[in-house]
């Protein structure tokens, strides 16, 4: 009774959503999946704790859902795409979560992303054949 080791386990700062994670976070992801439907979103909003109970979302998972602690939800193994169904309508973007994971602001996170833009045209010209504006 052991979970397989994987050659992606040692990629720094990286958590791969695999069977082990999906198994542990099944109930919470199942609950988040229902947020595709407006009626379910309203039902959750009316009584988050009762809604968690309905799906067997317990312990740390339940606590962070009620506290809307999206970062902790991710750390506990929630799937990012399912988590987004709860976080984005509440004003927390996937970039906000990425920034928080690194302990920087979203503006700093976006500035780091924009660094990839520097010298891009020159790089593409060097490789050749790219549309370049």
């Amino acid at each position, binding site marked *: 009774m052991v979970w397989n080791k994987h050659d*992606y386990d040692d*990629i720094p700062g990286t958590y791969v959503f695999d069977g082990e994670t999906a198994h542990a976070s099944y109930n919470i992801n199942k609950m988040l999946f229902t947020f*595709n*439907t407006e009626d379910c979103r309203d039902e959750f909003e009316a009584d988050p704790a009762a809604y968690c109970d309905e799906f067997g979302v317990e312990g740390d998972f339940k606590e962070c859902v009620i506290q809307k602690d999206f970062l902790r939800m991710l750390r506990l193994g929630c799937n990012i795409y399912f988590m987004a*169904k709860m976080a984005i309508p509440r004003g927390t973007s996937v970039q906000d979560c990425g920034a928080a*994971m*690194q302990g920087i602001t979203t503006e700093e*996170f976006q500035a780091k992303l924009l660094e990839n833009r520097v010298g*891009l045209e020159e790089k*593409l010209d060097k490789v050749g054949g790219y549309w370049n504006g």
Partner: protein
Amino acid sequence: MAKIIGGLTTSHIPAVGNAIENNLQQEPYWKRFFDGYEPAKEWLKEANPDMIVVVYNDHGLNFFLDKMPTFALGCADIYHNADEGWGLKPQAPFPGDAQFSWHVAESLIDQEFDICTCQEMLVDHGFVNPIRALYGTLKEWPVKTLPVAVNVVQHPVPTAARCLKLGRALGKAIESYPEDMRVVIFGTGGLSHQLQGERAGLINVDFDIECMEKIATEPEWFTQFSNAEIMRKAGTEGIETIMWMVMRGALQDEVKVIHKHYHAPISNTGAGVLVLENQ
């Protein structure tokens, strides 16, 4: 007989749908990204397909984690888009072609690709945004569609090598359909990105460009990488690039490269448009 005219690659991220919805295409952040689609749109107009095969992944609209097919094929006459829970406005339904779909399913299974067949299939932003980026936002779509969904959300996900083989089988399946039909394949998603973990925000421009070059001319090159190696270089969500291999496998080995466009960052990703034409 059905004929594959060519294939293209495109990003499918939610932000693209939001940008189109809010008419931001000519804003400074988006301009270079969207302007680079213009030659692809012109080519597509000229190619005039009757059918587009869209290789994409579902992000928790149609498939939950209870049943996760590695490969799934739409087998319906209509595919609906729907509320994904975070604000993208559902788009007009997309016409399918059940007869064509079932032909493809039979052929794939004959070729030992035991694909999951779906007579109802909601299509999410992964399918919708590429079509909107290339055709605009329409109330009626001018082309029929075939969704091919690949699991890249819950590991184990298929290898790049397996996706290339699926593409080759898909190409045979399409081109053995007896009806005259012009087909274009979309490979969506990618390129490098990672949405979570302390390494979130990773973009690997050099690897992205190398992938574009090689996938166009020498797709076997990409099959040297394990999924762990792809994620190490291109981020956890960069694994989506395996879906490009399905498109590429469906084309001829030697293709004409019509258009190459790369932009980074767009949202959290490196974004690549390749237009490849069969000879």
